[in-house]
């Protein structure tokens, strides 16, 4: 979905870089949830920008720059995981989960009471990477086709991926709040 920029010289100019760098907070947040560590997130963001500026001819000015940067950052992350033979195994993909009944079953209620920032972050990091990513991309306001480009999947699968990811997150969070309520915290 991202084509070539019309004028390659524009790709290396300061305004383009400046605009790209305005997304550093969003990129760092995304990287932090991919890696789970600030130092790794810093490295990931730096490499993503280096790769983005090297490949900036491929960016179309009318497309979503943030989404383009997100895709590059996730590709850097995946490349690093592949290179790291001793790294952690890839978590179970969201696509491996049988969810055929999820979208029609009677839902368990969730009100969010008692869920702290720390709980939320822990639960997010416990999700499979693709689940974390689709939730974060939705929070960032990416359109389905943009999120699909980041995840390397068909746009038509984004809705169900997001639905399953959010359901899994709610289930994880339900493990936290009742314990806290029970102890009056």
């Amino acid at each position, binding site marked *: 979905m991202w084509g070539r920029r019309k004028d390659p010289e524009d790709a290396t100019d300061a305004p383009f870089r400046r605009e790209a760098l305005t997304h550093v907070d969003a990129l760092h947040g995304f990287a932090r949830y991919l890696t789970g560590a600030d130092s790794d997130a810093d490295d990931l963001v730096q490499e993503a920008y280096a790769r983005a500026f090297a490949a900036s001819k491929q960016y179309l000015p009318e497309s979503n720059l943030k989404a383009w940067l997100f895709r590059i950052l996730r590709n850097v992350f995946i490349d690093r995981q592949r290179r790291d033979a001793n790294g952690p195994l890839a978590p179970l993909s969201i696509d491996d989960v049988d969810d055929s009944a999820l*979208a029609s079953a009677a*839902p368990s209620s969730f*009100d969010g009471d008692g869920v702290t920032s720390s709980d939320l972050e822990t639960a997010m990091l416990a999700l499979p990477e693709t689940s974390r990513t689709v939730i974060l991309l939705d929070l960032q306001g990416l359109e389905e086709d943009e999120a699909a480009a980041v995840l390397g999947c068909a746009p038509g699968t984004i809705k169900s991926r997001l639905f399953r990811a959010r359901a899994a997150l709610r289930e994880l969070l339900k493990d936290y709040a009742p314990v806290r309520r029970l102890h009056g915290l």
Partner: protein
Amino acid sequence: MDCRTTRLLFSDAQNGRLAPDDLKQRQLHLRACDPCSQAEQSESALTRVLRDRLPGHPAFAALRNRLEARWLASPRRASLPRPRSLLLPIGVAAALVLAMALGFSMGKRRGDPMALLGTEAVNDHLRMLEGETPLQVLASDLHQVKPWFAGKLDFAPPITFKGDDDYPLLGGQVARFLERRVACFVFARRLHKISLFVVPKQDLAGPREIAASFATTPEQSFASRGFSVVSWEKGELAYLLVSDVNSAELLELGRRVESSH
């Protein structure tokens, strides 16, 4: 519209991406279907929690500075990336050399080292105010806040000031200060919030110069981007208070924190 479609379209409905007809069909279904209505409430609660409480983890000033130095500097000055661990000391050393070349005396006046600390303190304080790094422990009781830091830092912040009617304690969080995990206690003063950063001195960039700039008691304040900053040291730790309250009120909190040790 069936139950499955209604639930799958939650995000599109929340983000205004549904066509009017689809939106209407979905609303009709929600009114008639209790399980889907309940699911909608759970989805809304999750969205609210994610937007309000998920830490955003924005980039720290050091990363911003590195990226800007590399990508927004003139081409002749742009260079290949260096190991992250080397960059901060190199940058600080360069700043110190430059400051000394310009005739600043670090030991006599609050020059660039403290300005660097003030900038970082204000940035971290702003992250807290803007909710990018929400308080990770909400408590008015110091006995809940201090133990919360155990296991999250490699030092124990020796704060004993419990807060009082003038400066109630709101909570705490682990903050990143010059790429170091540090303790941040948050107090209130009327409607203002005050951050107290507790930082191991040895980890501060340019330790000798900065250490020389610290007073041993909270007796002086300086301004950074309109915020008041008060700093002092005790033992192996440095303390920085930052807020938009006036400097006298910030110094008073500093004295209460210090005198309760």
